[in-house]
């Protein structure tokens, strides 16, 4: 809170020297990032590099053992996950976590805590406030389902959706929290090219309409190169490169750690 001395805009997300240690393993070390308004930043790195751990730190699932992070200048360390969500950070999961046995629309509505203020008595006596708020969130949930191209599926059980649609439902659920920063953990994993294309359109549309910033983890390099404005590369928990897609793609350390060497080395070794 104290460090708003610069005249330039306060970044949506700022992480300083963020780190976490599991036993002897430094899963993430000295992680720094700044994400501006409406920016789309990619976070890449080989398996086990610590990308998901960064998300878990920023969303309060893990408590950082070092450093701190700020949302729009507000310090978030030590806050509980739901408080961080209310402050404005929402995420999706690498291995889809939906409310499986609930309907598609209820999945979205469940994330609309902020929109609902009616209390127990109002729920039990079904006051006008209850009906008004429930009608409001139903309408909004339908709009969000439309954004992720899931209109018409609202009454299906989430579990019954095909894989690609489940991923999109997770995005709708994250949007329902009204966040400023959206964290997407490998949203295109397991999707075919058509589905990936559709996903990219959706991400574009979301950024345009909701004016939010996105931090994206993705394994598909071509995808990341195509849509991200900036990319940060992790390897063994440390940042080995950061910059525009072109800069990163030509960085020898990245090529070594992430793109070329492992496969070539493996081939040589064999």
């Amino acid at each position: 809170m104290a460090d708003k001395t610069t005249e330039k805009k306060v970044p949506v997300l700022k992480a300083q020297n963020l780190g976490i240690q599991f036993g002897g393993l430094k899963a993430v070390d000295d992680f720094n990032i700044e994400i501006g308004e409406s920016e789309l930043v990619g976070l890449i790195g080989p398996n086990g590099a610590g990308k998901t751990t960064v998300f878990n730190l920023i969303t309060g699932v893990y408590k950082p053992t070092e450093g701190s992070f700020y949302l729009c200048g507000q310090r978030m360390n030590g806050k509980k996950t739901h408080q961080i969500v209310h402050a404005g950070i929402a995420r999706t999961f690498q291995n889809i976590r939906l409310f499986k046995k609930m309907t598609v629309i209820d999945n979205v509505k469940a994330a609309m805590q902020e929109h609902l203020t009616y209390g127990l008595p109002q729920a039990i006596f079904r006051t006008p406030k209850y009906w008004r708020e429930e009608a409001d969130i139903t309408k909004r949930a339908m709009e969000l389902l439309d954004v992720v191209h899931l209109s018409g599926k609202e009454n299906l059980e989430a579990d019954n959706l095909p894989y690609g649609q489940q991923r999109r439902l997770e995005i709708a659920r994250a949007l329902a929290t009204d966040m400023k920063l959206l964290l997407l953990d490998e949203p295109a994993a397991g999707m075919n090219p058509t589905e990936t294309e559709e996903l990219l359109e959706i991400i574009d549309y979301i950024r345009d309409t909701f004016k939010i910033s996105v931090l994206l983890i993705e394994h598909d390099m071509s995808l990341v190169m195509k849509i991200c404005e900036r990319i940060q590369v992790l390897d063994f928990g440390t940042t080995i490169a950061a910059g525009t897609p072109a800069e990163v793609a030509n960085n020898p350390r990245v090529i070594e750690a992430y793109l070329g060497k492992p496969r070539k080395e493996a081939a040589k070794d064999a």
Partner: protein
Amino acid sequence: MTKQRKLSYLLNLIGVAVVFAVMTLLFAFQGFGDSTTYVEGVCTTACYTIIMVASLNLVVGFMGEFSLGHAGFVSVGAYASAIVSGALAGKGLSDLALLIVAVLAGGLVAGIAGMLVGIPALRLRGDYLAIVTMAFAEIIRVVFCNLEITGGGRTMSGIPKLATFHSSFWIMAVCVTIMFLFVRSRFGRTVQAIREDYIAAEASGINVTFYKVMTFAISSFFAGVGGALYAHYMTAMIPTNFNFNYSAELLSEVIIGGTGSLTGSVIGAAFLSALPEFMRQFSTYRMLGYSVVLVLVMLFRPGGIFGRWEFSLTRLVKKIAGRGKAKAAAAGALPQAAEKKGE
């Protein structure tokens, strides 16, 4: 839209009233011959058992946590209400007013107990609640066995007989309706989201611990209400009535009826509390019978007989009237209370 809602409320009220009227008439005109009084008693038992089972289903079915000590909260409600009605007896309150005060007191004290148990137990992940509730029920039983005010280990008798079939029926109808409305509100949605995936629930901005404790307290409140009716119907009780067997019985009724279906709890509780009464000669085999049924249900219908299905009178009427059924499902009326209880 509002008209449709009102119609749906009216319909359900009529449904409950019809069931009530039929049963009242049957009892008034000796519909069961010599055993009419007896049957009326069984039906009263069924009424408060329904409250206990439905309330346990809030925790087990909707929130997805195991409670092995529901009888503990029932007994807290039973004793608290008996103490209150004992203190207020002869102060000029009508029987019904006294019963309502006692029932609310029983519910409230049990609800507070639920909160106190829930706060430490529900913060933790895993099956801690099962262990903690079981311990709580045991501790409460021992405490009640040693307190003078609760009879000091002897039977606490002379509790005014305030609960009748009539009052029990309506209290049950109100309780089940409230629980149903709870489930069909943002609270029910939240709690079910927690059941499905607490990590995702938290990541969706849900304060998991808060809603868990809240639901558990509400469940305990209704357990206490059931206990209060029990006390004022039985007029005598001993702490060992509320032992582990009783908790296990309630839990098995939830599971047989359907975890996550209040309809299942209502029918399951009514049926299972009536059945052994009609087969008194086999009462030694009651727990055995439960176990067998439980195993069969687990094998063939793991979600319970009704699964998560809910009965809706509005839907039924619309179907019969032959109008669009899709609309009825969306209208989501309050059903439940209209279930038949016992035979």
